[in-house]
């Protein structure tokens, strides 16, 4: 009996305090960021100036919002590739309701103030449709959103005739270009939304349910979580965030080109995954995803300052993402999955 009591204690020993380190797992990219900051300051003295760093933040704010959206969806154990097409299509179509036919619009000329709400609504509708196909029809999220990526972008090309839109209402471009309290409005908006995401996934039941669903959907269902409803909301929020990213990007560039957002999804996944968000769901944090965006932004900035020719940027990009993955793996000490 004493023997079994002893083995009892042995097998049930409390797992060590090392697990407390778990909360720092979000921050495994911090050393990478520090290395990049140091490397950048050697590359060009301009790099570490507030002006340049602000610039980095503004350039990445739209991408960051899509990363936020994708991180939410990935944590809940799903996938959305169509976000990048929403970034271009939602603002383009919304603006076309406002501008006259001569500028490429539909000729409806609804009040300009409705353009941004309409844009967000279109994003939400795309998300809702994705959710409908994936949850009600039980289709694979990967294939559905791959098709939707093509459909949504095709819709934009068809409606705009492949042309860029330049005659935009001022209210629409305001958010992407304005400065509030010395920082671009886009940076404020992105920052607030990330803070909201961190709080929601860290301190609210609804947010925590994403981890439960992504980690083990059956267990979540058994715990009384309305799995389908939550996932649907996540897809809608994702689409809306992508549309907002489109608004910010439009304002920053002052026009909507036919391929706004095209190709972003690779960067989005790279940022989310090097930020520690698992492709299998249930793992990762919004803060981690944010560090992933920062790494991508700093790399891009350094490459530009260094004057790397555009043709070589892709290669350097990919290589640096691989290195960042390896560093975060070593720092985090956990196998990536």
């Amino acid at each position, binding site marked *: 009996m004493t*023997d*079994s009591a002893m*083995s*009892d*204690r042995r*097998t*049930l*020993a*409390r*797992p060590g305090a090392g*697990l*407390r380190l*778990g909360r720092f797992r979000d921050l495994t990219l911090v050393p990478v960021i520090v290395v990049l900051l140091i490397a950048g300051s050697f590359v060009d003295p301009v790099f570490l100036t507030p002006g340049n760093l602000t610039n980095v933040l503004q350039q990445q704010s739209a991408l960051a919002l899509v990363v936020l959206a994708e991180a939410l969806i990935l944590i809940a154990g799903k996938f959305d590739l169509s976000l990048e097409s929403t970034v271009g299509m939602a603002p383009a179509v919304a603006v076309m309701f406002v501008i006259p036919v001569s500028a490429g619009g539909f000729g409806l000329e609804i009040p300009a103030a409705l353009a941004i709400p309409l844009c967000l609504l279109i994003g939400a509708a795309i998300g809702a449709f994705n959710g409908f196909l994936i949850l009600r029809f039980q289709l694979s999220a990967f294939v559905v959103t791959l098709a939707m990526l093509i459909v949504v972008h095709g819709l934009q090309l068809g409606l705009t005739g492949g042309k860029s839109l330049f005659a935009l209402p001022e209210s629409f471009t305001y958010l992407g270009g304005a400065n509030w309290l010395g920082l671009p409005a886009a940076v404020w908006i992105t920052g607030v939304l990330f803070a909201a995401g961190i709080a929601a996934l*860290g*301190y*609210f*039941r609804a947010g*925590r*349910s994403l*981890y*439960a669903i992504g*980690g*083990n959907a*059956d*267990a*979540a269902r*058994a*715990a*009384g*979580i309305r799995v389908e409803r939550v996932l649907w909301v996540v897809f809608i929020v994702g689409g809306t965030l992508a549309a907002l990213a489109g608004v910010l990007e439009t304002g920053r560039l002052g026009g909507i080109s036919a391929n706004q957002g095209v190709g972003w999804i690779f960067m989005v996944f790279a940022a989310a995954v090097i930020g520690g968000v*698992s492709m299998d769901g*249930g*793992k990762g944090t919004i803060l981690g995803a944010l560090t992933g965006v920062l790494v991508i932004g700093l790399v891009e900035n350094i490459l530009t300052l260094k004057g790397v020719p555009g043709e070589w940027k892709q290669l350097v990009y990919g290589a640096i993402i691989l290195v960042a993955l390896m560093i975060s793996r070593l720092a985090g000490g956990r196998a990536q999955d």
Partner: protein
Amino acid sequence: MTSTELAVVEARNITKRFGPTVALDNAGITIGAGQTHALVGRNGAGKSTLVSILTGLQRPDQGEVLFAGEPAPALADRDAWRSRVACVYQRSTIIPALTVAENLFINRQTEGGRLINWRALRARAQNVLDQYGVAIDAGSQAGDLSIEQRQLVEIARALSFGARFIILDEPTAQLDGPAISRLFDRMRALREQGVTMMFISHHLEEVYEVCQTVTVFRDARHVITSPVPDLPHDALVAAMTGEAAVAYQARNRKVKAKAPIVLAVSGLGLAGRFQDVDLQVRGGEIVGLAGSGSSGKVGLAESLVGLRRPDTGTITVNGATPRLGDVPSALKAGLGFVPQDRHHQGFVPLLSIGENATMPIAHKLGRFGTISSARRRTRAEGMIEQLDIKTTGPDQPVGDLSGGNAQKVVLARALADDPSALVVINPTAGVDIKAKRALLGSVEDAAARGAGAVLVSDELDDLRICDRVLVMFHGRVTKELPRGWTDSELVAAMEGISS
């Protein structure tokens, strides 16, 4: 029956169909207050369906469920269900990426307020764990817990909803001997506190150990409910199988002294698992490996087949020395194996029986890398007949088979190439009595054909077919028992009590 008038839960005349299959046919169960009630039956008898109906995950097509005489709440009212019945499911519902505390309070992390107070949550969780005597830190990551610890967390979570009725669906299937006895101690303690339990297990000894009442289901129907002492082992097996049956009788085999050594191991060691293992298996011989979960027996067996790479020592199969830690080279040397976890390593659920079973011999079924489906079919049909696999045909996906039949496919795969050495790990885990007999019989058949076998098992009954049993303790072979050992002798050796 005792205290039927105080039925905590009663399922009456339940019928449930899934498409063409009838999972439950006018079956029912009545569980008295404070009882530990066993539900037994072969794979496919309808146990799992009854569990999901009793826990409100599925609605019966006909019939009703009553809790303490009251009709069951609506299916959508999860909280009402959880205050009446809790379940520790066969498949873990622990979410590995979250902490133990959050797992305990999933979807009810907040107390009143909207914000989650992590410190308070951890304290609440620690309270629950301490209340049920579970020595686990609430702040630890659930994925880092052992299977036993996860199960304890699930039990504590189940009880924390205030339910006084718990369903334990095959809780012992994945535990080793000492862990099972700890679980039983806990179940007895809960019963003393007035908790009612429904206990599902394939191990009939366990029913006699912890249960007062037993209900048998067979082919979706209720067969018998009886107090445990009134239903002797043979009668229980007969009720389950519908025929008078006895436990597997090991055959009388003799190993020829001159039979060649087909599997030899010397000085094998793997840090943290086992050290200095020497082992020789002759053709026609079955050698058992016994030991507790931490004894290293599974690690040793997995090293033999190349799933793990030992640090030191050599392995010889049939005179050849396969590369350590390399499965293809072990197979090529003439080794067949049944891995520990069939779901994980045993079969590809979406592929057909034919494809699964002939995987290692695919190169022999056609020329130049092609596979002749006619030849595969013939081979598969032979295997289905030989192992008595219950299936609609060789094209049925293995994922659709019951546990016992899926395991037979895994064994068929191991035997496909007529191996000269066979390594079998826990072949009878989670399979019913009839399948168990077929599986052990096939191992003995292989031995009769001249193969040498290593059988690793947590079940003493399985080891009876062995010519000798090596007992491992803390990574070393500490004892060798010839045929004719007694249970107590073997258990004592496994616990490291004897010298």
